[in-house]
């Protein structure tokens, strides 16, 4: 009990042990739901944009409930930049690859020339690849937008 009181004394203004515990418990489920929305876009409402925003919101929630440092420990600045670029590159790269392989730009059935699958199956798979790219890009850019705008680009304390 005494330790709890001591730790409560060190806590900064606006930090609440209730909110932090709730956020810590909710985070895995939010991220799992984000992945589900991305992956299940073929069968239900959802897709890369929506799932990416949910994943990005989980990191923003960490930054709001704890502080920016905790958020940056979960997803570092470098990894975030790499993921954003890789996500956009996956989408554009898939399109260019299709064009180089003799199809039209973003005509995923041309990928059947590399891995022999049914061209129709490749169109389904191509949609999935592209959605994953969109999800990665949107997730990291949502997180980095919040980090930069909330801390004036310093990435130190935030709100």
């Amino acid at each position, binding site marked *: 009990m005494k330790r709890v009181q001591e730790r409560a004394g060190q806590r900064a203004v606006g930090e609440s042990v209730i909110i932090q515990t709730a956020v810590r418990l909710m985070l895995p489920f939010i991220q799992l739901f984000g992945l589900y929305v991305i992956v299940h876009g073929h069968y239900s409402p959802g897709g890369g944009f929506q799932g990416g925003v949910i994943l990005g919101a989980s990191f923003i929630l960490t930054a709001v409930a704890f502080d920016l440092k905790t958020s940056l420990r979960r997803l570092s600045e470098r990894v975030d930049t790499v993921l954003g670029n890789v996500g956009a590159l996956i*989408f554009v790269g898939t399109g260019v690859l299709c064009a180089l392989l003799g199809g039209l730009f973003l005509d995923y059935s041309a990928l059947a020339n590399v891995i022999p699958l049914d061209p129709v199956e490749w169109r389904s798979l191509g949609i999935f690849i592209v959605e994953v790219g969109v999800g990665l890009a949107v997730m990291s850019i949502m997180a980095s937008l919040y980090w930069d705008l909330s801390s004036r680009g310093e990435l130190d304390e935030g709100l």
Partner: protein
Amino acid sequence: MKALALLATLVTGAILLYGTQDFAPWGDPDSPPNRNVSPTYITEAVHETHVPNIVTAVVADYRSYDTMFETVVIYCAGLVVVSVLRRRQKS
């Protein structure tokens, strides 16, 4: 400068409004998009792409060019905010 910006906005807006004159009537089942494009998507999407969700098939396959540039727009937003605001951290 402000007056010039206002003028440019008004002229662009007027041109866009003028462009809507040529749109097909809203909700008309006999307009060209409703007669040709939509039925094709509805009848062909599932066996052409094997995606049960037609919206996903349209967004990420038939109209993937549009979706690609939506991603690029978001990417540019992130890029601009990072390049304008972020300062090199002392580590």
